[in-house]
């Protein structure tokens, strides 16, 4: 029996998340794991934008910032529960992505890159300049999600890091499932068609502008939820979450692992999240090594790690 690639991907993902803790020597590994999942979620969204639709964004951290600060601000100013605040952040991100996406997605290549970059910088600038509201560059506290206490009441007692490992792992599987479903839907097919050639897609009747916008909005929601999870987990947030470097990090994770595949991109997130932790053994050479890894992977594995490795293995088998 052959499982569909969708089911295989989800099974692998769920199995790795569930089994990995067996090998964890300390709860620090749960922390790294949960960060991988939080980044993985943002990256799964970018797979839809970069991998499926073939568009680029150097400003998606802006949406992560909106999601993160929604969780910090809405509970204080609107009295919302943090979970609802995350939902509000996602809606806000979707709305902003819709408004911003319409004009900027008409641009191509580097022009789209600079426009999205400008958007991301505007968001991070507002977050660090409106200090009365956001605490400025020094950041602000984020309230407790409260789910852990609920779990404890029904007899599931998890430490903070364990809880966030499990919770963000769960959200990631859910996000991956949605992304994979989209791939096989009519929308997914339309996106891939315009990735191949916009002109060809237009000729066969695909509403190119509409589908690009759909991909942009969906990926913005993923980034926003990822930002919310990060804020709730850290219980503290600074404008760095919306910064240019975070945008670059997200795109690099996506492309490094393989923009065309959800599992590949999540692998990219896993590698780039653990890399700084591993590279600490190089001390001052850390930055050097990071740059080197980025270059080498992109030069020698153009489609990204996972697709390149998969192809090599398949090539050997045949």
């Amino acid at each position: 029996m052959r499982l569909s690639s969708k089911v295989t991907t989800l099974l692998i993902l769920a199995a790795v998340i569930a089994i990995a803790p067996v090998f964890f020597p300390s709860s620090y590994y749960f922390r790294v794991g949960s960060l991988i999942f939080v980044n993985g979620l943002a990256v799964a969204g970018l797979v839809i934008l970069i991998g499926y639709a073939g568009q680029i964004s150097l400003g998606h951290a802006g949406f992560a910032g909106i999601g993160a600060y929604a969780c910090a601000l809405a509970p204080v100013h609107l009295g919302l529960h943090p979970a609802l605040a995350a939902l509000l952040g996602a809606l806000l991100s979707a709305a902003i992505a819709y408004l911003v996406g319409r004009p900027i997605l008409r641009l191509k290549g580097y022009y789209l890159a600079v426009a999205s970059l400008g958007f991301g910088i505007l968001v991070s600038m507002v977050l660090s300049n409106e200090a009365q509201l956001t605490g400025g560059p020094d950041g602000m506290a984020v309230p407790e999600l409260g789910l852990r206490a609920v779990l404890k009441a029904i007899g599931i007692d998890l430490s903070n890091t364990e809880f966030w490992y499990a919770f963000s792992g769960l959200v990631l599987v859910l996000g991956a499932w949605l992304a994979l479903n989209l791939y096989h839907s009519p929308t997914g097919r339309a996106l891939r068609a315009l990735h191949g050639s916009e002109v060809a897609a237009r000729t066969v009747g695909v509403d190119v502008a509409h589908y690009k916008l759909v991909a942009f909005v969906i990926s913005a929601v993923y980034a926003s939820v990822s930002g919310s999870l990060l804020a709730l987990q850290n219980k503290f947030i600074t404008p760095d979450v919306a910064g240019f470097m975070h945008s670059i990090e997200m795109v690099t994770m996506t492309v490094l692992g393989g923009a065309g595949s959800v599992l590949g991109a999540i692998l990219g997130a896993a590698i780039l999240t653990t890399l700084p932790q591993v590279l600490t053994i190089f001390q001052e050479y850390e930055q050097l090594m990071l740059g080197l890894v980025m270059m080498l992977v992109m030069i020698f594995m153009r489609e990204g790690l996972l697709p390149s490795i998969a192809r090599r293995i398949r090539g050997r088998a045949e």
Partner: protein
Amino acid sequence: MPELLQFLLSGITVGAVYALVALGFTIIYNASDVVNFAQGEFVMLGGMITFFAHAAGLPLPLAALIAIIVTAAIGVALNKLAIEPARGAPVVSLIIITIGASIFIRGATQLVFDKQIHRFPAFSGDQPILIGGATILPQSLWVIAGALAVFVCLWLFFTRTLIGRAVLATANNRVAAQLVGINTNYVMTLSFAMSAAIGALAGVLVTPITLTSYDVGLALALKGFAAAMLGGMGNPKGALVGGLLLGVLEAMTAGYVSSQYKDAAAFIVILAVLFAMPQGLFGRKSTDRV
């Protein structure tokens, strides 16, 4: 009125810095359609190497010359080791490769030199020049003159010289260029050397004003990139106008509106221009490849 003039002078000074960085982007983009995000690191290297060579006792002009040559060599190495092997990779991969290169160069610089902020003396002293109640430093004139000179040289290079046209031809259609006898590898090497040298020259000129350290490259690259896109990527005129416009815009916003949102104003204008003119102010029209 002296205020307006002062804002303008400040804007042109900063704008000339951006323009120098943007001009560096132009050549590599013209030859290979790659936007080299490590361009800011060339500027940083120009400043840092000059400082350390000068501190080691070399006279400033010699130190600057060494910095420009070393940086040009690094530019060539970047092309040979990272860009050439990745030929034909999609835009997003090239962005990541050049950002990886920029992180790598930054990491190497902090090891070879240090993480302190440095400055070397201005070429013609620090006595401000009075113009109608406003002031400008002699070094600013050096920067502005440098930007203009580089612009004129590039313009002549691309329109009047055979090799310049070969660069454009290579960008336009690599195979066709090879067919008519252009050595495209040589063209690529040359454009990386030139871009890096222009970047290093920018670093030499601006360091007495902006100061330098191992991590100034990224901010410069972002502003230079934005300026180049505003003007229209690949066009020296666009790079010059885009850079000056960006600088003046920032200075005017800081002077008349709010210094907190001056960078925001710059990006809003860039977004607005791109919405109206998707190829920037002077960009060449591109057609979809079918």
